[in-house]
């Protein structure tokens, strides 16, 4: 029975670890400027956690194999205390985990800071993103470079005034471009301002290695630079009601020339 336990634990540990190590299922491609640092932080954590995982499981398996009674016969062998008592365990855990914590925090907090604690570079493209049950809308300032004000009392899905704009009284709102997917230029810093008009939502694009909640009553800035053109899915990761499962949109990363052309076409269509 002890041998069976040992073999089972060993097989489970090795198979699980192998699937991680072989990247059988792994992160999708990274299309962001900052994603490389997140990925390497994740890899580093994976290696350490993987070693600790396999080591702990194998130690458990080995001790159970070695020290369990066989065939229901009561063992009379005297018990042996662990060499050195609890002290080595405390030292091992504290030093190993402690070093790991220091390293992860030191490196990781820099990665975090580079994404969330630095302001967007000057000249970043400003886009307003509005989340609502159960869709995302993006707004560009239009030729005047200015966003019109948002008025909650004017927000209405039926008239498609998602942002609550008041073009009758607000000249800056007249040329604002509102679209149902997020279109951004490649290799240019983008700063989103996340608004939600109803409940909490979240902005998650796995390929962009970015995720941020929309919080009612707050406008949350988020900046990144996409490095590859293409069409990627944007999903809401905060449970937001009945249609949450359906709250998806696309992020289209276009070359800078195509983006300029697209923006012009959108402005002309107003």
């Amino acid at each position: 029975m002890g041998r069976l336990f040992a073999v089972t634990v060993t097989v489970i540990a090795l198979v699980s670890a192998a699937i991680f190590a072989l990247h059988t299922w792994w992160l999708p491609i990274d299309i962001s400027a900052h994603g490389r640092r997140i990925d390497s932080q994740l890899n580093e954590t994976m290696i350490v956690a993987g070693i600790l995982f396999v080591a702990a499981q194998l130690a458990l398996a080995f001790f159970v194999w070695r020290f369990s009674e066989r065939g229901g016969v009561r063992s009379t062998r005297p018990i042996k205390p662990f060499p050195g008592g609890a002290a080595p365990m405390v030292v091992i855990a504290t030093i190993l985990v402690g070093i790991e914590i220091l390293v992860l925090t030191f490196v990781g907090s820099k990665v975090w800071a580079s994404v969330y604690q630095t302001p967007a570079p000057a000249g970043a493209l400003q886009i307003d993103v509005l989340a609502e049950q159960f869709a995302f809308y993006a707004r560009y300032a239009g030729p005047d470079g200015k966003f019109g004000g948002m008025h909650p009392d004017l927000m209405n899905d039926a008239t498609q005034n998602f942002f609550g704009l008041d073009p009758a009284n607000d000249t800056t709102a007249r040329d604002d471009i509102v679209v149902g997917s997020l279109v951004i230029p490649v290799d240019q810093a983008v700063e989103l301002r996340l608004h939600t008009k109803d409940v909490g939502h979240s902005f998650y694009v796995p390929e962009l290695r970015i995720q941020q909640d929309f919080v009612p009553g707050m406008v949350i800035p988020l900046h990144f630079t996409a490095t590859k053109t293409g069409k990627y899915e944007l999903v809401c990761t905060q449970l937001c009601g009945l249609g949450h499962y359906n709250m998806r949109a696309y992020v289209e990363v276009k070359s800078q020339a195509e983006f300029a052309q697209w923006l012009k076409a959108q402005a002309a269509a107003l």
Partner: protein
Amino acid sequence: MTHVATPHTHAPPQSWLRRHVFSVDHKVIGRQYLDLALVAVFTGMLLSWLMRFHLGWPDTAVPGLGKLAPTGAAGGVITPEYYLELMTMHGTIMVFFVLTTAPFAGFGNFLLPIQVGAEDMAFPRINMMSFWVTLLAFLVLIAAFFVGDGPPLSGWTAYAPLSAVGKDAGPGQGSGQTLWAISILIFCVAQLLGALNFIATTLDLRTKGMSLARLPFATWAWFITAVIALVAFAVLMPACILLILDRVAGTSFFIPAGLVISDRLQPHMGGSPLLWQHLFWFFGHPEVYIAILPGFGIVSQILPVFARKPLLGPRVFVTCLVAIAFLSYTVWGHHMFLSGMNPFSATLFSVPTLVITIPAAIITLLWIGTVYGARLRLTSASLFALGFVSVFVSGGLSGFFLAQPSTDIYLHGTYFVVAHFHFVMGVAAMFGIFAGTYFWFPKMFGRMMSETLGKWHFWLTFIGVYAIFMPMHYLGLAGNVRRYSAFTDDYLQPLIPLHRFITIAALFTGAVQLIFLYNLIRSRVRGPKAPDNPWEATTLEWSTSSPPPHDNFGGRRPVVSHGPDEYGAPGPRDYVMQADS
């Protein structure tokens, strides 16, 4: 009528109702809690079966479900909307009514007074009230499932303002959500009453010689859990009151101004959605430890019994428990890295979260070190205790990824999180419950469980849970978001085969639990009579009959002169009981 004092004799009550239903006996109350948890866990598991089935085969009908849930699953095909309701109920039932009631309230009630050598809890009537109030909370929650405007749909975390604005936010936010909040409020009251008893009993009713150094490890864990619960539920309770007021009285604690829901400008202003998250997670993270610390205690008590060897580093173990309890109140913000709170505070919350792995790692090593040099007897109880160590390692290590804000950016909101907390507080806590059941069943019911069935139950469950939850890490790495279903038309489509594998594993592992249920019921009626001390264990519950008499020790009080785990003595009887003189 004047209140006449009767001399206290602690004789068992005579009427059937007072003995078995409205009993103040902590042993009856403990069994009632465990029975409630058993009903709850099978309900929760059934819901997870439906969820898993829908994830694997979203378009296939479940036979008979169309009749049970005509709106959510017309014709038996589960809709993605119904999936979200199932998920909310699954989470709430499991976290509150299984993982809190079974390992803490259930086993703790039955055993803590006996282990400290008391005749009952400090306040037996409050103890009885605590159970009945818990049952009321459960019934209110189940009622929420059947109200006209749909079961609650805000997850077990009930983030405001979705949970606070009411009907406008769609079906599932009506009276069902109100009942949800009322149920949790009632549950808080019940657990506060329970925790009060645990603490007072441990502090004041220990028998002669039962110093803190001789306190069994399970009792240590229940005591510390009670302290955690007292603080945690004391915070969730007012939070629930504020949530209910936002829903029914038009206040704006959690609802900010200018929300437009279903094209209606909401009449609220000034509230803070993050306030709910802070209050909830200040409870929510310690709740994880409320679920798992009793498992720590149970394993630390069971392993020495079957290793025939004292626990390695008993003082270190207790110190680590205290450290975990303390740290558990400093880490709640790690649930909120991406919630829009000040990004600087993410690092502040990340550090204690990583630090808490140190005492957890030490405890794990103590268990592994206890097995070293042992004469390990493998029974259903010890197998589940060893399995606990294995799954706790697996679940604990994935915490490293989520404790760091930088990697949480990618993994937050994915199946990686689902895998992490199911391993560490779902599966590990369940393994603690199973180990405890196989170990203490003879004491509770005076009959032995079938070891053969117990071992089958262990092997199939152990392999099953790894087959379910390990692949969820892979899903998370691949960017599979949680609380989503019906991936037939999006980027998650390639992952459907993996989902099907998990679903089959879940259906299989769930079915295996029927072995446990059968063993439980059959042994209760027909199991062979249990001796007083079948495992040759040392703590006080094994010094009395199986099951113990009404006053636990038959009119006498044990005097303790030994530690809780004196095993491995030379000679034919290799253990010294706590009450040996």
